[in-house]
């Protein structure tokens, strides 16, 4: 990427991000996200009664479930909107490669999640006010949470590349994210394994390694394990690759 390309990506990123800022959707999602994270932590997680100055159990615990629903809500307009309005043609006739557009749009949506997470800072101040928390797990918890959001967002981006309806994109993305969250769960694994012959078990176990959840918890405890970081980056790369091929197939 040369200087010129960076400028183009930057311009496109700015346009995308401002379109978020100018739409009410951003504010609605931010408010819902903040109410959900804090509400879960303080009301369901009983954070103040836990007498434990760490954010893992009461706060980060709930994030995956919130992202499963809200990340697709942020990401659903990434490409579906362009398809619906036909502006995709315009966008791709611009002197930029599809990859630049994909990256710029993904970064804009990622910025939204960055802001959302940054706005949960009061709980960090609270925990430092009340006790002497371990900084490490809080930092890794936020990184893990952000990775989770980006993972869901990337999946949504891939789905939205194939459909022109935002509603379809939202529902399919939620389903995929939920699946990726749940495939580590034994109930689901049982159900699948029972319908398969013996060799299927190894396959199922391999698939359950792909579950978002496991990789999330390792990190939210305060350890960066190479394979977890690699896992999330892989998910994002694969999903963006699928986005690219989706756009190409639509255009063709």
């Amino acid at each position: 990427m040369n200087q010129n390309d960076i400028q183009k990506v930057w311009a496109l990123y700015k346009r995308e991000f401002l379109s978020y800022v100018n739409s009410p959707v951003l504010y609605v999602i931010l408010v819902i996200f903040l109410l959900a994270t804090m509400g879960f932590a303080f009301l369901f997680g009983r954070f103040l009664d836990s007498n434990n100055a760490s954010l893992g159990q009461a706060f980060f615990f709930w994030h995956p479930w919130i992202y499963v629903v809200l990340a697709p809500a942020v990401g659903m307009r990434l490409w579906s909107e362009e398809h619906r309005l036909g502006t995709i043609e315009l966008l791709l006739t611009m002197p930029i490669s599809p990859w630049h557009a994909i990256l710029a749009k993904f970064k804009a949506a990622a910025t939204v999640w960055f802001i959302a997470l940054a706005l949960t800072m009061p709980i960090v101040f609270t925990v430092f006010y009340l006790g002497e928390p371990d900084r490490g797990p809080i930092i890794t918890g936020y990184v893990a949470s952000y990775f989770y959001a980006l993972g869901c967002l990337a999946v949504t981006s891939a789905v939205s590349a194939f459909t022109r309806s935002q509603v379809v994109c939202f529902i399919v993305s939620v389903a995929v994210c939920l699946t990726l969250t749940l495939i580590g769960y034994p109930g689901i694994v049982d159900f699948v394994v029972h319908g398969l012959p013996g060799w299927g078990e190894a396959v199922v176990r391999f698939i359950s390694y792909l579950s978002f959840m496991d990789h999330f918890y390792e990190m939210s405890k305060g350890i960066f394990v190479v394979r977890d970081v690699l896992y999330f980056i892989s998910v994002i790369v694969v999903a963006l690759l699928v986005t690219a091929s989706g756009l190409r197939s639509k255009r063709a």
Partner: protein
Amino acid sequence: MSSSKTTSTSSAVGFTTLLVIAIVFVINYIVGGLGLGNFRVDVTEDSLYTLSKGTKNILGRINPDKPVTIRYYVSSDERVMPPVLSTYSRNVQDLLFEFQKASNDNVVFEKLTPNPDTDEEDKAREDQIQGMQVNSEGDNIYLGLAIQSGSQKEVIPFLNPSEETKLEYDVARAINKVISTKKPIIGVMSSMPVQGSPMFQFQRQRGQEPWAVIQQLRLDYEVRDVEMSATKIDSDISVLVVIHPGDILPTTEYAIDQYLLKGGRLLACVDPLCWIGQSYNGQQNPMTGQSTVVAKTSDLPNLLKGWGVGYSPNEVVADMFYRGTLMGRQNPTALQLPAGAINRSNPITESLQSMTMVSAGAFSAPAAGGPTAEILLESSEQSSGIDLATAESLRTESLKEFTASGRKKVLAMRLSGTFKTAFPDGPPPAAVGGAPGGGMPPGMPPGMPPGMQGFPGMMPPGAREGGGAQTDPAAPAATATTEPVAAPAPVAPAAPAAPVVTPAAPATPAAPAAPAGEAKTEAAPAAPAKPALPPDHVAESKGDSSAVMLFSDADMFYDAFCLSQDQMTGTLVAINSNLPMFLNAIELLSGGGDLLAVRSRASTQRPFVKLDEMREKVEVEFRPKLQSLEKQLNDTVQQIGTMKVKTDAKTRTLILDPEQQKQLADLQATQAKISKEVREVRKQQNREIDWIKFTLKMLNILLMPLMVIAVGLILAMRRRSATAAR
């Protein structure tokens, strides 16, 4: 652009995409599946997930010719394995990999998957791994370790996820045990049956289990019982543990003194008010048929004095800041010590997080010239010493008057350096026939009735030794025969300042079994007015080998104050750092410094300190008001009480004239009013804390959403006015 060309381009691109995806999968598989991705960056403050130096030292001691094999049993079948356990099993595996790496391959790691109905399940059973039945078909899951070196084997039957922070210690301890050839000996001396009592089938009584601390000790050490009346401590004992030495004899103190000075190490728990000891009282000992009598208070009067340590057996520490609950009541003598009360620079206490002490006493450090003291645990400044009666009454009522001393009270300390004997004049006489003198403090009434020894609060401190000695018929005889006694000679009371007497008397080597009279006649000419010292009497410790660890509470090491039953597995888990503290201390004293460095990061609990501080502040504010209200209430109740005394002896009914009736009604109304006020004040106390919690909750939940809405509205309005202006 021809359609065929488009198709070929897009298929080429599609192929590239698939290829890249495949590569990503393969990388993930290589890194994750094959264990290359176990490189971890541990960012926790206490490096919770990194092997400690102690572990590495232990691993470094493994003999390459006798490698250690770790067999890791973990069920992998997802149909039966709960997700919590499979996540945890991966952490365990990662940690075991770290062990293997740090050992230069002297640790051999084997992973077995004992899924239902496999050969490996049989192996797990052979290795005594604990199977847990998970469904009605009888399928078992396993998550355990067998650690073996040569013929020595250690098994961790089940790895409990809630004890994750203890995992490294457990594994390191097991490795340390299988590679070490000899167990250190720990002597345990106590006036309570801490070692349990054996089952006695004839009387159909269940034997008592030993205390958990003793059971833990037995895992790593040879535990040897030492009688409370012992007059000699075996020199092969590497650590002597003394728990609540109620009614200790001066002769026993002398034995401990000499043991220590000859390079022994001592862990002593004295207690001004021992709750657990009280609960043993009255129980029948199935072996002897006698009922157990445990003194309420314990002390090591001569030894503590000899080291220059101040300790009052009549004083219990009450601490408003660190108070906890006892039997469902807030009790300032039930100390909940947070990390701030624990010495952060000593290896044994460094990473302990919280301790519990119940009705502890207070020490004062020795002055210069004595052994070096290092404070391990201390109270807050909001503390004060209260007397035993008040401390006992706190079981049912709250503390009415309290003035903080403003000074921190020492609850535990470690003494090291040079120790001088507490018995410079040689062994104290065995208390035969209530002869006064010897090491006993003056003021002791001669001939205390035997039954009195269970109630030390009723007699002057120091008199207890006398009472105890007389009731134990075996003690005087034993002392007379095993120790060279110079008894009837006049003996000056032991004093730390007394000049050290050199063993000048040549006469004493006379046979230890020599009659007391003979010893006297021989000793008298050599050193008039001074007793003869036995040949092996040591006046001062040499080298750094001698060490003492002092705790001012014995209850703290009782099971109920260090362990609780885990809801899920039914196993016992530590609720605080009391047990680690005890084991740390034993390990340090017995010289196993490596293991010590492993466990020192046991608990990860980080409490909300701020809320505790607030609670204390609020209570200080309300205490005077509450006190005056409670006093008023008491007065009213008393007034009512005195009125009711006038009863008719025949009919046993109250005789009240109308005026008295009115007065009674008034008093009762006042009583009701005051009780209500007390309730109100208490409610108000709680209200402040609740208000702070509520405020925090609301700020967290609502502040940011409202700000987001405000920013959104402002931006929207600005946009609108911008468009309107056009």
